[in-house]
């Protein structure tokens, strides 16, 4: 048994660290660490820096422009990214569209679309969920009717993350009116500037804007935009859902959050008592730290098991479950540590005016926004169902 990375891996980690220290723009990392929204330009600047280094499309094969990393390297890269406050690059182009095209796309699709993902010409978003069909793809309703060399799309998608920055969307659509979803769904690419597409923002609980609804009214899409065969979209969707999801446990984010809490606890007083000496807070932080250290190792164990393949469904479900619990606990601890001022929105109260080194109301907003962790991307209830199915299999 050996907990340590080997020498090659350690050297790689040092290389990533050096890169983060020299190349990650400080204004971006500051935003990430304090939980502020990133602009499209922030993402694009970091994307260009990664692409120049060849570290952008971490899961792609080298022939398509990926760095040729194994699972451990990908893990190291994403953990170091989190620890240094690098943006988590939206997965829709790099981690979803790219691998899908590489596995299911035509040569034509690969040669035209993959480079556009890397150089930022295309920002993809995802059209899977529909109102009334979040985790339940089988009840999906959006239709694509074949009309000559085109499909005519009618319906609605929702929870489309960062759709406001995107120019393209990949959709699951119903191409057969009958039969099981496994045999009636197709995977289709749509330009967002096609007539009949309308994107509307959904304001979230914190007042911020990161997801959208997309409406399709008689939208005409050429049949070449199909990925894979007609009525075989289920296979692609399943591939995406079970595909290795790097950093699903978010250990790096949680380590960063715990550090942030510890700094705060050294700086803030509650009723005259230094928060780091406050027994209730200190005992709770100690328990969370134990959970986080265990999670870090669990993550590595599952990584080691699946070093050569994709992560098993049960393993990644467990990581998602515990990972979101730990992160949400930390957000709650941080919010709660701030005390009465956490109820105050920052507008009008600058950092200096607060005379404490944190953005008080921001912490509560971040806490509320991060309730999404246990809902989006397959709710924790769905993850428990997945693990239970495996546990109670005959």
């Amino acid at each position, binding site marked *: 048994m050996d907990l340590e990375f080997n020498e090659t891996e350690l050297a790689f980690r040092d290389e990533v660290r050096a890169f983060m220290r020299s190349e990650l723009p400080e204004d971006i990392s500051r935003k990430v660490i304090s939980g502020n929204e990133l602009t499209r330009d922030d993402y694009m600047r970091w994307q260009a820096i990664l692409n120049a280094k060849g570290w952008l499309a971490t899961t792609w094969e080298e022939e398509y422009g990926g760095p040729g990393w194994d699972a451990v390297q990908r893990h190291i890269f994403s953990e170091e990214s989190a620890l240094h406050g690098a943006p988590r690059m939206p997965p829709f182009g790099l981690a979803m569209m790219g691998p899908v095209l590489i596995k299911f796309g035509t040569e034509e699709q690969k040669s035209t679309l993959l480079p556009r993902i890397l150089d930022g010409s295309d920002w993809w978003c995802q059209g899977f969920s529909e109102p009334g069909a979040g*985790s339940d793809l089988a009840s999906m309703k959006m239709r694509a009717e074949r009309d000559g060399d085109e499909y005519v799309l009618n319906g609605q998608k929702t929870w489309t993350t960062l759709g406001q920055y995107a120019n393209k969307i990949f959709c699951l659509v119903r191409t057969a009116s009958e039969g099981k979803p496994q045999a009636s769904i197709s995977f289709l690419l749509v330009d967002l500037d096609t007539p009949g597409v309308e994107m509307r923002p959904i304001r979230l609980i914190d007042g911020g804007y990161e997801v959208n609804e997309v409406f399709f009214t008689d939208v005409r899409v050429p049949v070449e935009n199909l990925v894979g065969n007609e009525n075989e979209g289920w296979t692609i969707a399943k591939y995406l859902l079970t595909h290795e999801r790097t950093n699903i446990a978010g250990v790096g984010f949680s380590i960063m959050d715990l550090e942030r809490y510890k700094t705060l606890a050294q700086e803030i007083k509650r009723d005259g008592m230094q928060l780091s000496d406050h027994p209730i807070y200190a005992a709770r932080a100690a328990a969370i730290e134990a959970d986080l250290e265990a999670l870090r190792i669990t993550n590595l164990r599952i990584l080691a098991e699946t070093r050569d393949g994709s992560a098993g469904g049960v393993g990644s479900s467990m990581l998602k479950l515990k990972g979101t619990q730990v992160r949400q606990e930390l957000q709650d601890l941080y919010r709660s540590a701030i005390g009465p001022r956490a109820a105050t*929105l920052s507008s009008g109260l600058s950092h200096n005016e607060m005379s404490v080194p944190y953005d008080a109301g921001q912490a509560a907003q971040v806490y509320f926004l991060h309730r999404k962790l246990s809902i989006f991307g397959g709710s924790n209830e769905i993850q428990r169902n997945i693990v239970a199915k495996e546990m109670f299999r005959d």
Partner: protein
Amino acid sequence: MDFNLSEDHQLLSNTLNRFLGDNYDIEKRNEAGFTAPYHLQDMWNGLAELGVIGALVSEEKGGFGGSAEDISVVFEELGRSLCVEPMLGTLLALRVLSDHGQDERVEQIISGESRAALAVYEPNMSCDLSAMEATAVEQDGVWRLNGRKSAIYGAPGSDFVVVAAKTESGTGLFFLENPVLICAAMVDGGGVADLVMENTAAECLALDAETSLTSALDLGRIALCAEAVGAMSALQDLTVDYLKQRKQFGTTLSSFQALQHRAVNMQIEIEQCRSIVISAVGQFGQPGGERNVSMAKNLIGRAGRLMSEESIQLHGGIGMTWEYPGAHFAKRLVMIDHQLGDQNDHAMRLIATGAKQLVD
């Protein structure tokens, strides 16, 4: 032993419920709550006309109520409608003013003519008055205040602020007209302010008002707890309705046993919260009654988080959206824990007062 509201209280509750229901929908509330002055003046006038502000003060002090039960009846209804009007700040100010013979000012506030807030909290102080750092010193017959107050609820747009500050005799109260405030919205809507005082001249109301302050703050805590119970009930109704309607995998969410059991746990906690408010109300003013207040704030803090997080989770994505009323109830329930001492502050207070009791 009778847990029903008296006829008068039932009338107050129904009147308020109807008034808020008729005049106060969630869109209007959200628009007002996040834009200065963070409430609606015509709503405030309406509440004054209904006598709701007066219900916070006893008849002998110029009001028409003023018992802990009156206050809990009012705030439960405010919570059920998620009202952002500055009633908490007004309650706190009214109580200390009426304790110190400020009859005229009390009358103005009750009539809705003017509005006041109470400045107690500070960046390093959450619940324990002895941690207060702001000071008041008399120089040449003028009282001058120094220090920083924060979390002054309902201060934006108010006509004056009552400030608590340390004097040589204890914790004094001072009256400040047209204060210069740093105003902001609260995370869940409504107004709040900080106040920076540098040799700020003020009128002295009392040199040592700790008893009055503690009593006012404890009533404020009862008010917040009652508000939480109202908000929890409304949120639970939304959640149960949603589970009954929403279908997934071909069946309603309410048929999934794991979700059922979680909804039951929430329901039990709501009953517990309602009970602990009754306990705090019943013991208010009795010896040891501050322990029941702290028990209430501790339990409501824990249950509020549970209700908030579980209701969002059981709703799924829709529970995360601004458009959905439930999200705002959920936010309110968590933020209530940040006001007037949170679950941990009140656990510490229970520990301190418990030790004292055993020594007596």
